[in-house]
């Protein structure tokens, strides 16, 4: 009798946890997409929670301190890390993406303080959604500058 009670109790907890995980996953899922995918999918992705990454094009960074509105363009980079590695590492891929005019580009709009790491050839990881105007409205903006942390070789003695 006690045993049944404990098993029932355990199942109840299990069911509750499964429910919490499943419903929370559905409620807060963010879809990883590359800029190429976002461009080709078109209106299908409007409204979905998205996460995308791209190479920041330094010349396009604009910041309006009055409204704290930041806008910049990002160029397509592969979404898969293995691909990035195969193509020569993150720093190289970002550099290639920025100088290649044929790459798909997308404008990103973000309201808030300008992040310290935003600069040319940084990797921007944006969370947000696509607007009907084809711009990406980011709620959250993460930046990585691979050259700074991963370059072990001193620059001044290269070449």
């Amino acid at each position, binding site marked *: 009798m*006690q045993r049944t*009670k*404990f098993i029932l*109790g*355990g199942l109840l*907890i299990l069911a*509750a*946890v499964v429910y*919490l*995980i499943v*419903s*929370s*996953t559905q*409620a*807060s*899922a*963010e*879809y*990883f997409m590359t800029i190429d995918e976002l461009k080709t999918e078109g209106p299908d992705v409007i409204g979905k929670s998205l*996460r995308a990454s791209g190479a920041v094009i330094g010349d396009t960074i604009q*910041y309006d*301190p*009055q409204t*704290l509105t930041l806008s910049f363009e990002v160029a397509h980079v592969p*979404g898969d*890390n*293995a691909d990035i*590695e195969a193509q020569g*590492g993150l720093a190289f891929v970002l550099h290639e993406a920025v100088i290649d005019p044929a790459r798909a580009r997308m404008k990103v709009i973000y309201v*808030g*303080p*300008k992040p*310290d*790491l935003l600069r040319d050839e940084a990797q921007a990881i944006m*969370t947000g959604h696509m607007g009907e105007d084809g711009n990406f409205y980011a709620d*959250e903006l993460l930046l*990585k500058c691979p050259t*700074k*942390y*991963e370059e*072990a*070789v*001193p620059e*001044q*003695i*290269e070449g």
Partner: protein
Amino acid sequence: MLADFGFGVLIVTFLVALYSVIAAILGERKQSAQMVESARRAQLLTFPLLSLTAGVLIYLLVNNQFDVSFVYEVTSRSMPTYLKITAWWGGQAGSLLFWAWLLSAFTSAVTLRKWERDREFLPWVIVVSSITLAFFLSMNIFFENPFARFYQIAGGVDAYTFKPAGGVLVTPQDGNGLNPLLRHPGMIIHPPMLYLGFVSFVIPFAFAIAALVTGRTDDRWTRLTRRWTLWAWLFLSLGLVLGGRWAYDVLGWGGYWGWDPVEIAAFMPWLAGTAFLHSVMIQEHKGLLKHWNMILIMLTYALVIFGTFLTRSGVLSSVHAFAQSAIGPMFFGFIGATFITSVALLIWRWPELQSETEMKSMLSREAFFLLNNLLFLSVLVVCFWGVIFPLVSELFTGQKVTVGPPFYERANGPLFGAMMALMGIAPLSAWGKSTITTLGRAIWKPTIPALFVPVLAYLAGYKQPVALVGFFLVAFVIFVTLYDTFRSARARQRAQKEDFFTALARLAGRNRRRYGGYIIHISMMLMAIGILGIEAFQTETQGTIAQGQALQLDGYTIQYNEVASWDDPGAGVNYTRAVVDVSKDGKYLGQLYPRIDFYFDSQQTMTIPGLRSTLQDDLYILLVDWQPVSAGGATFKVYHNPLVNWLWVGALIFITGMLFAAWPDKDPSLRPVRASKHAVEPSAAD
């Protein structure tokens, strides 16, 4: 030269660690006490050897030996000496060495203890700890050598352990410098604390394995390692809290915890360890859940290694950066191998770990402990799911889907709530059996005043429903705990004819684990107040204002006074500091100085908030952008974080409770309490 010497000592240490593993196994096999003693001495030798290696590395760091690539990566000439020393754990090669050094120190402390009655554990404790040590040292030797140096060869400059043929040593003028984000007192203590916590969990794991191998599967191993577990838990908890404080002070987003994979990686061993800490008490009292405790400590160990792997290079790395390092597969291989071995051992000893009694009542203390365990593991599962979900979804749907902080908050919220309720109820229940009546009698009185708390909070303007439930639970747990302490002290006062405070002091002094636990539970509730405050009631505003103008937020007026910018060439930093006047409801409160620091060597800016902190709320002001004096405008972002300070107050009380519970004394835990396993436990061991 010196770098080569450091590397040489590292290799010798590695060999000594391997020797101690082999000698311990052989000694145990051949029943040779001499052999085991030799293994023990070898194990003890690793600590001075590693200290020497570390000394060499620190010497190189402090003396700007930039031909060593690790020194080049983490220091620069402009850094003060204390930061150069702490740069030891500022990069991955150094932090692996730091981990190994701590582990060696801890295992030495363990092997130095008197072993008379537990001799049979000794060889296996040495085997487990030395294998772990050897693994970390091998990572340093084969993959992440902190002593590698720059050589120029035909193909360019790279770091090599040994001089390549035709290579010319290259000595850069200056180093990259430690990432400015890491140049903060919190960052100096945070990694060591976390690592201390990680490393001390190796000790109970080593004893668990020793118990399985030797077949001495009573609760001796848990009693021997109880203090280790408590200290491990203290350090790990402090590591997490300090990390949060650092994020709050340095990262400039007005928060302390972002459910980042790296944070979760440090949180998961804490969850498993906390569950373990609680469930060993059931084993000691009732002889129940022996398999479960073994599983928990194995899980904790695996998560500790996993957490080290993910956190070792600090916050800035995300999970994705590891693919490039050969170290990843090695870590996963090691975790897999140790986990499979331990589970195999457990299955082998499974029949000997049967429970001595049965759980009889759903309302008994042991049933509540079990529930507590399930809740901790549920949170662990939620966290683990969140971390691996992108991989799973990609595998099954081809579409990479990730979950962010809302997932963790939503899924964990109810679980945290249930844990809080349990913290109030469980300590009041009796071992074996409680009834609704006895529990109700202990609870109903403190529940009534607790009901008033959310009402008062509502009237004070805190109107968010989830937070009100949270405030009720906080008050409930605190009142129930205090009331129970009060009742026990009163009972003692009457029985012993002491005055109330003497009775209270003696009661707590003789039941330190219980009352230490009470203090910790209350501290958790205070921390919960802080978390509820910032999660539910944080407000923010931002704007660009001219000198003399002001921003308004929740009754605060923040007036922009002036801004100045200057270089500090010695430190290699440009400081931009704004002065703002803060007043609330017309009353002048003082000035705050939000800052932007620009580090020349790494070309990075750091935004340091101006912070006014009281128990009621924090005002957190960021200088976002500024124009030269002529234009006279500056952009500020202001956060109002109600009650968040209770998080740090709670953390301090937490330390107090922990020290109270774990401080060494005449060690009643080592008395042969359970000579007869069904004897009535003296309440002092509660």
